[in-house]
Structure formats: C-alpha cells, structure tokens
C-alpha cells in the first residue's frame, strides 16, 4: 500500500516516537476533511470515502470497503473526523515504515479496531483481513498466533496483543542497533584500508 506521490497526505508528517500528527498538521487535515465534507454533516459517506482513498492510495476496491467497515465502528454508514484521523495516521505509519511503532504506541485503539465482533478477542481470520494495513506477511501472522496465543484458543486477547507489540519493537530496536553497528564496522574497516593504502604509497 502506497500513498500517491504529490497528494496532500504525502506531505504530512508523523512524529516518529509517538506516531501522531502535530497540531498544525491536524489543523490542515481538519480543513481538508471539511472540504471533502460536501453535505455539511462533518462526516464522509461510503462513496466519498471510497473515492478519497482510491485517489490517494493504490488500494483495491475490496480493501477500501473493508477499511471503511472497520472504521465505521458505529455502523452509521459514515465516518467522522476521529476515524479519518486514525486512518491517516495508519497510512502515514505504513508509508514511513513505522507500523510496529504505531501498533506499540496505540495498541489499545488498534486492538479495538481489529476486534470486529466486540468480544475483546482478535481471530486470525480478522487479523489476516487487515494485515495489509500494518505490512504483516502471512507467515509472520502465523508465527504471531503460534508464539503469543498463550491461552491456546486461537484468539488474541489484549494482553497477548500488547505483548506481541512490545516484543516486536524490542526486536526492531535490536535489529536497528546491529545494523548501525555493522555500518560502523564497515566504515572503520574502509578507513583502515584507505590508511594502509596511503602508508604503502608513502613507503613506495
């Protein structure tokens, strides 16, 4: 899933730690939502929502429809600014490769969104429907349920989901540290090589 280059959302920026928009960005987003609110109800209906998401992303019609169903948590057939803001944050987190950070920082609202039946549990099927939003591969999802379904009911409760997000972030941070360390080692080796070459050339 990619945002269309040059679209309005493409210019917005998520805070990397808290994965939220700044006040100015929210103001701009609110103005944008207001422009799209054709009927003056502070909401977007399913048609407007579909055309908006179709215009700014490369999502398919089926994916857009299930995103709408997920966000229309009141089953009103419309989504308000709160849900719109949540969606934009998810899109930007995906665009900037902050999906793990986003799920960690906002585990409760993400869990509530994925809990379609409202029974405080997420099934593998439901999570699988929305894995494109969080860039989770099929195998990763299988491993997730295998490793974190402590209760053994093939469903994730909130604690299990939270544990998954914590360990995901921990793994990500370790990976980033090792990558930085490798980069540093590579640079050091290159510097040493160049120094050796200089020494050799001087001796000659």
């Amino acid at each position: 899933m990619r945002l269309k280059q040059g679209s309005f959302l493409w210019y917005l920026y998520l805070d990397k730690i808290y994965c939220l928009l700044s006040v100015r960005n929210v103001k701009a987003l609110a103005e944008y939502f207001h422009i799209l609110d054709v009927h003056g109800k502070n909401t977007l209906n399913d048609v407007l929502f579909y055309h908006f998401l179709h215009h700014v992303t490369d999502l398919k019609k089926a994916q857009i429809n299930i995103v709408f169903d997920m966000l229309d948590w009141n089953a009103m057939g419309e989504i308000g600014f709160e849900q719109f803001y949540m969606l934009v944050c998810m899109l930007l987190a995906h665009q900037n490769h902050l999906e793990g950070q986003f799920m960690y920082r906002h585990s409760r609202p993400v869990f509530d969104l994925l809990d379609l039946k409202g029974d405080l549990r997420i099934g593998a099927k439901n999570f699988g429907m929305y894995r494109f939003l969080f860039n989770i591969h099929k195998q990763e999802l299988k491993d997730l349920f295998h490793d974190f379904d402590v209760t053994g009911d093939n469903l994730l409760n909130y604690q299990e989901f939270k544990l998954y997000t914590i360990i995901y972030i921990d793994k990500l941070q370790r990976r980033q540290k090792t990558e930085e360390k490798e980069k540093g080692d590579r640079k050091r080796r290159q510097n040493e090589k160049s120094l050796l070459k200089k020494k050799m050339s001087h001796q000659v």
Partner: protein
Amino acid sequence: MEEKPSKVSLKSSDRHDSDKESMHSDIRDLWTRTTLSQAQLNMPLSEVCEGFDAEGRSISKTRGWYSPGSRSLDEGDKASHKPEEPDEHALVELELHRGSSMEINLGEKDTASQIEAEKSSSMSSLNIAKHMPHRAYWAEQQSRLPLPLMELMENEALEILTKALRSYQLGIGRDHFLTKELQRYIEGLKKRRSKRLYVN
C-alpha cells in the same frame, strides 16, 4: 485616535494567549484601525502594499513552507514564520515607545519639547500606519493555512468529488437532492479556484 496604537500594542502582546474568537476580533480591530488611520489616507497604494499581491502572497520572496524533499509542514511553517517575528517585535517596540512618549507629553508644559515629542510621535505613527496592513495581514496568516496548501487541498478535493459525482449519478440518479447538492458544491469550488487564478 491617539490612544489606539497603545491599545493595539497591548492587544498584540496578549494575542498569542487569547482564544480563537478574541483572536479574530483582534485581527478585525487591526484591519479597522488600519483603514481609519488618518496618516494612511494620502499614502500611495504601492507603498502600503509593497511586496504583496492581491492574495497577500509575497512577490519578492517565495514562502518556502514546503518542498517535496522536506515533507514537513512544521519545519516549513517555522521557516516561513521566522522573518515575521522580528518585524512584529520592532513594531511593538515602536508602539511602546510612542505610548511612553505620549504619557510624557501629558505632564509637560514646555511647548518646544511638546512639539518635538509630537513630531517623533507623528513619525512613529506614520511608520506604524505604514506597517499596519502588513501586521494585520501577518496576524491573519497566523490562524490561516498557507495559500499553496489550500490550493493543493482544493484541487485534490475537486478531482475526488468529480469522480464521486459520477458515482452519485449512476447510483442514485441525477435528480436526487444529494447529487444536486454535490454538483452545486463542485461548481462553487471551481468558481473559487478560477477566481483565484484570475486574480493571479
């Protein structure tokens, strides 16, 4: 009339702390005082509006609030606001100076010093009057979104809504009130856009 600039200076210092409504009334007051200012009446328009076009955009310098590389509205806004702050500071100082000079005048009986003080105050009032429309403009800009951003949003919304209109027409028919409402809205947006382009 003489008391108004000091009132304005007090208001300007409180402006950042006030809520949206009082901010709007402050901005309206600024624009009202600007038009009532006696010193400004004989000033040529080019001097009053130097460096700004009808939309309030700077002609000489571009507002680099965003670029495809930076992708940050915050940084862009910060950058665009930096040149405004020193101007406001200088103007506030001018007004405070004028206010204090006016207070001195009330106590003094010496006519010569009075005349001098009046001269300095009239000079500063000229300067203030010259800068008033700019101050009002910048004050308004504090609460408004940048015009390039508005343009981008409206253009994108127009494309989205035009496609939505086709879906409305196919789904609920051309005569449905929602379709007509959307059509009117799109026409309104197009008029606003063409008005802006015409002005440019």
